[in-house]
């Protein structure tokens, strides 16, 4: 059956005239084999306990906070992203996360969470403690979740791709050698 391809083709050819509109997958495109998406509206947490969820959220927001430029990890629902990755991940990873969050929880009994995070992050290049090792995993998950969210892609990074362009992007700066 050729029809769907041709339909898509017509839609996109028409788009060529209207310059740089954002590309959305064609109406009939199935981006998800299961129907699940990862906007995480009304998401039910499957891995984190409520206490872990709250702690993970606080830590993630410290790593990528809301600031004057853009919203942060909580608004981007990074804890929910992490929960899905972990709940469908390996037992080894699950164990490491439970232990890591517990270590942060314990350490923040005597210090503020901000101070514990600062201490853990100081080991980033060469982690030696459980806190230091977990910080690396925690930050990686936060980065992976944040920069794949709409907030991370559009609001924070101002990404201008995945658009329908009438011509290939081109440098027009003589100082770069274009001419």
């Amino acid at each position: 059956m050729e029809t769907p391809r041709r339909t898509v083709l017509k839609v996109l050819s028409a788009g060529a005239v209207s310059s740089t509109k954002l590309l959305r997958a064609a109406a009939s495109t199935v981006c998800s084999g299961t129907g699940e998406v990862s906007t995480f509206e009304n998401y039910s947490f499957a891995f984190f306990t409520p206490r872990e969820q709250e702690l993970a959220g606080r830590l993630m927001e410290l790593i990528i906070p809301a600031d004057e430029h853009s919203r942060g990890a909580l608004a981007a629902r990074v804890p929910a992203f992490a929960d899905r990755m972990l709940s469908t991940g390996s037992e080894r990873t699950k164990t490491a996360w439970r232990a890591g969050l517990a270590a942060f929880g314990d350490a923040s009994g005597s210090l503020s969470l901000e101070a514990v995070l600062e201490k853990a992050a100081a080991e980033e290049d060469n982690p030696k403690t459980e806190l230091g090792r977990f910080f690396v995993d925690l930050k990686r998950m936060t980065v992976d979740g944040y920069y794949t969210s709409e907030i991370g892609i559009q609001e924070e990074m101002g990404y201008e791709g995945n658009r329908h362009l009438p011509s290939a992007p081109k440098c027009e700066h003589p100082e770069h050698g274009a001419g």
Partner: protein
Amino acid sequence: MPTPLYDVCVIGSGAAGGIMAKELCEGGAKVALLEAGEEVKPHRFRSHCWPSEMPFRGYRNEKQELFYPGDVSQSIRYERSDRVSVDRIRVLGGRTVHWNAVVLRYSPSDFREHTVNGIDVDWPLSYEEIAPYYDRIEKMIGVCGNDDGIETLPAGRHYLPPLPLRCSEQILRRDVRGMGAKVISVRKALLTRDYDNRPACHYCGHCMDGCDVSAICSTPGSMLPKARRTGNLTLRQNALAREILLDTAGLARGVSIVDRTTGKEEEIRARLVVVCCATIESARLLLNSKSTSFPDGLANSSGAVGRYLHGHSAGSTFLYLKELQGKAGSNQDGALDQCLIPRWDTKSYRGTYDFQVNYSGYMFPQQARLVRGYGSAFKQRVREMQPGLLMLGGFCKVTSHAENRVTVDPKTTDAHGIPIPVVQFRFHDEDKEIYRAMRTSALEMTERLKGDVTETPAAEPSGFASHENGTVRMGTDRKTSVLNSFCQSHDVKNLFVTDGSTFPTSSEKNPTLTIMALSLRAADYIKEKRRRREL
């Protein structure tokens, strides 16, 4: 009802099989085209999907998972191997629905490595013999680019307008000139204007995830519509070839298949069989096709089937040009691989490498995984760096050796009871020398290009960047090769193999254009032999 007898059975619908099926159908042959995977229709491609439209934000290979169904990715074993991996895509169109479409001609010396450099072997055909087929293929598939007048990268006459350079690429061109390296617009099977009833590219930057408008050449978008128009094509999807069957005269009589969806076994009968399953699967199929005449695998009197496996080694460089950091955002995705640094050192085989530039998309800021710290300062640093990103992909020649090979393990089978392939591969000294020369050049470029470098090629090579070749090689000596220069089996005259497995040696260039040209040449040969009733 007796099963039909086809003139030709083509196994595999990738770059080689697509060309072969189209050409033979247009030549009047009744063709059965077998594909172990199934069609992913363009409206199901996930190229334009945003991460949040998928369950795992695009991780876990979500964008391309439809191209690798079932157990295909697991039913393989690597033994006594250096760090290599092979691609066994299983979808209608094969890797033509999952490629950046870089199409580069081999140069005259690439066919004469032994004569010119004293390594490898010479091909049984010359550049002059294949050049007319390069011409025809480039015209057929639509290639953008230029004739840049570069000795190592011969050109034709049928190019569509070239892709322009983006800012990072202009700076690259400006700053590496002193090394002798030349930055050119890539040659890519991508339409920069409407061509052959296909629309021009819309520059979304997702070539590798499937092009929904067929602005990139693919078998389903470019070859099958033409084959179907002849009324001569029968396409069988989910048809996994188990073995090629022989008649009492020792000729191929057809192919035994298993339907992946029903598990039903069937024989597809044909007067002639063309194997186009790609380097690993073509060798696997021949090795699994054992008979009293060929106890070590079909067409394997030489013992060369499965041997001489090779492919590119590759190494990446990521840097963030200071000149562009902190600038206003711009759309850098474009067509991907928009420019190329062709091989420039021709003094010895050590110079057999090139660089493909900006070969991946910009949606995810890779530096976010590397910038140290956290908080607003971290966010700001990631943001500032992004406009400066420049990617250099070094692709290196790897030499061809008999002990690097694919075998099959009869004791370990896939989900359909077919023995799995086993890969054994070690890099040789020459391969390491070439790779190290590429690495040295990459490091020199990073010195010249003032920027923050986050990745340089590893100290030792790895492969194959989806460009594996060899295993069913052509040659003039039937004792050391499987095929003649027309991709015809020395042993079984109605058996052909026309994919990358046929390459006796490889250069630094992507193999697909040469695969297509060889397949077209073999198709012409088959048509002529059929006309004369010699096949």
